[in-house]
């Protein structure tokens, strides 16, 4: 029952046209570049998987990572809070040309909806967005004299996650602020695929320090010395 895959391509082989894909990372911290680029390569070579719904806080920067997915034409829709970046051309052009959909979700609501998806909470109420365009069409209710907006859980077919350590039973740690959405997405996806900088033996991660328990992880592939999106961009990657 090992979850450890020896090739990135094999680890990704369950991703099909039309799926929803949560991708960890906030800015460049936590972006699973090797997983993403292997998926882009597959799409370029085979025309699949396309028509994807991608869930991330942002919508790509420059021409790497999610931006590379958008340029390749494999993303039908973005669900995100902030589709801007230092170089948002990939998304902006596609969006203004009507070639890509956008569901804009406030950042905290996005995080909570993903957690709710992982925790079996189909809906919750939040003060966030009350009285704004974002709340239009959503059920609203008063609790203790204050108005709240009902938000629904968010799940996905697949999550692509970058971890620091992974043990063979799927327990994960993250590096610094690369943690961000990844532990939540691991909970909310049917299949969670992890690239880890190092795969270790069960017991090598202190049980007190496990951030994502293995129950939320399906596939692991080791990517030693992974690329860091921000560093790539600053290094002039196109």
């Amino acid at each position: 029952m090992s979850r450890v895959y020896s090739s990135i391509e094999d680890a990704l082989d369950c991703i099909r046209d039309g799926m929803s894909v949560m991708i960890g990372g906030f800015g460049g911290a936590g972006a699973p570049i090797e997983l993403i680029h292997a998926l882009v390569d597959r799409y370029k070579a085979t025309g699949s998987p396309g028509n994807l719904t991608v869930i991330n806080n942002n919508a790509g920067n420059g021409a790497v990572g999610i931006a590379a997915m958008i340029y390749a034409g494999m993303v039908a829709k973005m669900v995100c809070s902030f589709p801007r970046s230092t170089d948002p051309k990939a998304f902006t052009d596609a969006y203004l040309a009507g070639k890509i959909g956008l569901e804009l979700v406030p950042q905290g609501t996005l995080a909570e909806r993903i957690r709710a998806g992982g925790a079996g909470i189909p809906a919750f109420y939040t003060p966030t967005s009350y009285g704004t365009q974002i709340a239009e069409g959503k059920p609203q209710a008063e609790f203790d004299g204050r108005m709240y907006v009902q938000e629904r859980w968010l799940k996905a077919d697949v999550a692509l996650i970058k971890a620091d350590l992974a043990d063979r039973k799927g327990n994960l740690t993250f590096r610094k602020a690369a943690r961000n959405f990844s532990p939540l997405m691991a909970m909310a996806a049917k299949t969670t695929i992890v690239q880890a900088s190092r795969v270790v033996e069960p017991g090598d991660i202190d049980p007190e320090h496990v951030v994502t328990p293995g129950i939320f992880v399906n596939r692991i592939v080791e990517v030693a010395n992974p690329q860091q999106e921000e560093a790539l961009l600053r290094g002039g990657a196109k």
Partner: protein
Amino acid sequence: MKKLSNAQIAWRAAQDLPDGAYVNLGIGFPEMIAKFKPEGREVVYHTENGILDFGEAPPAGEEDWDLINAGKKAVTLNPGASFFHHADSFAMVRGGHLDVAVLGAYEVAENGDLANWSTGPGSVPAVGGAMDLVHGAKQVWVVTDHVTKDGKPKLLRQCRLPLTGVGCVTTVFTSLAVIDIVDGHFLLREKLPGMSLDELQALTEATLRVNGTPKDLIVPEL
């Protein structure tokens, strides 16, 4: 009479940071406030992407791009820092655990409504964490020029642009004044000494109320 620079507005806002406060500074202009925190005052900064108690930017060339703030700028850690995931981060925000959030604004209405995320159709909308912050922090401050680039009031009877939050702003630090929002009205706390109340009112759409005499808004050269 010279209006305040952004740095001077940030300085003025920084003087009001309560000792021991947990504070979220919005991307861009509000981030400048950290620089002017009065000495000896302990403030813990929160960033949406899962860090408490981060410190200044590292020297150029020493950035760790896994250690960034919500503006995707490299930061450092203070002793006592912690990492957590996004849902915990926004539990801090939404759950009322932050003392102060500081944001920029396109428009602020006298009832505390804030518009700062969308200039209307035709561009790519982006909201980030602003809508969460305005309904979570105990105090929501705005730092802004008092008027638009065209000289039009930004402090309005009602916002015209899409709202970020309803009745959420508690204090506005502008290039001309410090204004609290109390019971649905602008209450002028401080104004530039060289400016009359009438002059300030002429640049402000909604009525400025005064409780006694407003204090002089005095800031250092920066």
